């Protein structure tokens, strides 16, 4: 019934005219793809290729500080990150209180995250200087005794590095958990109140079920980020005393500065048993549909 006037029935073959838009799409995305290829894919592949020699690993394992470093890293991940998240979970509960002064406080609270690491971490470092730091000065003035050796003690040093790490990144993760708490519908709490739930029961039956996925995936992501945290250790203890407070991040960079690239890359490869399961968990929790 519908005849094309003139009988023009030849249609130009595909590509359909939208291919022009696809071409532009490729042009628009190309700059990032180039950045990714040049500064992520190529370096990583090249780095892994550099790490192919077994002798590097023999040399690395022979370095007396390597195992200490691996243990330090593990402690850092398990203790610092979990402590940080417990604090963040608790603090997010504090900051969701809707008061003007709490809102102002949350602005102040974000400062450690907003300002650069270097001056603040040096400030902490000086506070804990055993000879002239503020803390030992105060201890001396109060008790007439010398304070602890702080950063010159490997155990306390690592502990302080962990606290520094927490101080620096706690605000960010608290912010994430605050957003998570604010996304919980208010009615759920009101319903729980009507049902006579206590504060703890509200947390257990309303907050935690909604927050759990976010909490766990944030913890894992934070562990990955923490593995790459160079500043908290390097700027505070420099890896000392006697290279006893290194973590894998600072150790790798130390090898680079000593021009031992193969050892640096071997260090990274040795961290893979830590990184890969975390990434795997992360991918799994990201690909799962939201409950």
């Amino acid at each position, binding site marked *: 019934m519908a005849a094309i006037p003139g009988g023009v029935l030849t249609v130009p073959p595909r590509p359909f005219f939208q291919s*022009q838009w*696809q071409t*532009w*799409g490729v*042009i628009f*995305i190309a*700059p*990032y*793809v180039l*950045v*990714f290829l*040049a*500064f*992520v894919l*190529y*370096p*990583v592949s*090249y*780095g892994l290729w550099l790490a192919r020699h077994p002798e590097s690993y023999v040399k690395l394992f022979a370095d007396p500080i390597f195992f200490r470093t691996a243990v330090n890293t593990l402690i850092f991940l398990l203790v610092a990150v979990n402590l940080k998240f417990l604090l963040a979970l608790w603090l997010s509960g*504090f900051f969701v*209180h809707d008061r003007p002064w*709490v809102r102002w*406080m949350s*602005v*102040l*609270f*974000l*400062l*450690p995250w*907003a*300002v*650069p690491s*270097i*001056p*603040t971490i*040096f*400030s902490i470092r*000086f*506070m804990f200087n055993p000879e002239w*730091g503020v803390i030992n000065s105060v201890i001396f003035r109060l008790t007439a005794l010398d304070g602890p050796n702080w950063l010159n003690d490997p155990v306390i040093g690592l502990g302080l590095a962990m606290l520094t790490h927490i*101080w620096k990144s706690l*605000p*960010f993760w608290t*912010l994430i958990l*605050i*957003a998570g708490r604010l*996304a919980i519908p208010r009615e759920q709490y009101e319903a729980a109140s009507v049902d006579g739930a206590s504060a703890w029961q509200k947390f257990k039956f309303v907050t935690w079920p909604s927050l759990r996925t976010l909490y766990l995936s944030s913890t894992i992501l934070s562990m*990955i*980020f923490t*593995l*790459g945290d*160079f*500043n908290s250790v390097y*700027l505070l203890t420099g890896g000392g005393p006697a290279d006893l407070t290194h973590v894998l*991040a600072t150790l*790798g*960079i130390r090898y*680079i500065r000593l021009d031992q690239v193969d050892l640096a890359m071997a260090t*990274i490869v040795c961290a893979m048993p830590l*990184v890969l399961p975390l990434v795997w968990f992360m991918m799994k929790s990201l690909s799962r549909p939201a409950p």
Partner: protein
Amino acid sequence: MKRKYWNEAVLVLLAVPILLWTLIPIYHLFLFSISSKDSAFSGALWPDHPTLRGFGTIARQEHFYLHHFWIQIWNSLWIAVAVGVLTLAIATSAAFAISRLKVKGGRTVMNLALFTYFIPAAFLAIPMYKAMGVYGLLNNRWSLVLAMVTLAAPYAIWVLKQASDKLPFELDEAARIDGATPLQLFRLVYLPLMTPSMVAIGTYALLLAWNEYLYGYLLLSHEQTITLAVALGHFIAADDSPWELLMATGLVYALPPAAIYYAFRRYMVSGLTSGAVKA
């Protein structure tokens, strides 16, 4: 009623340790930088003779560690601005291609981009350092710019894509019918509507670059090319460095990001947390 007051009292009591924990290192930094050399370590809440002399010394570059202060702060600024602009350009156009032009493979590119963050930053720095050597960019400020763009872009693309997904697709269709080419759509419709998100993301990238230490420390080494952050790191090399000058310089270095953060805090906070919770 009684219960309510009690609740408020607990809140205030909790606020005190939280504030102390947050502010002591920053206050200490401030205090140190306005103290003279000998009174800096006393533990007093306020120095006996507060002085701004340190800042004058810095401005006049009157110390061995500070001979290149102005050029170094200029480097920091130049690099931060370059990273902000370049990240915005690259990420906005990528988000446009993925979200509006629906380029084939766009989602894969974005997932790969986000995969960058699964490589711990200090670990990526090592092969990146090698690659920059291969490209002949070591000790060139472009190496730091490109490295920071690499780190900032995935997040920027992700946020901008989410923001641009919220623009109604019919706008694009209307523009197409009105006769817009992809380039005109980008310039005349997309960019004006994305401006608020772009301000937030540009600021984010700029701060990221300004605050960065590790990559600068690895990629730049010449006195004239290093950023202020790297220069501050050099102080610590000696045992008898002028700590109060270090702290004063640190304060100068920390103030711009703090100020920008306060100016843009609403944007930054909502932008940062937008992706965290699936609405």
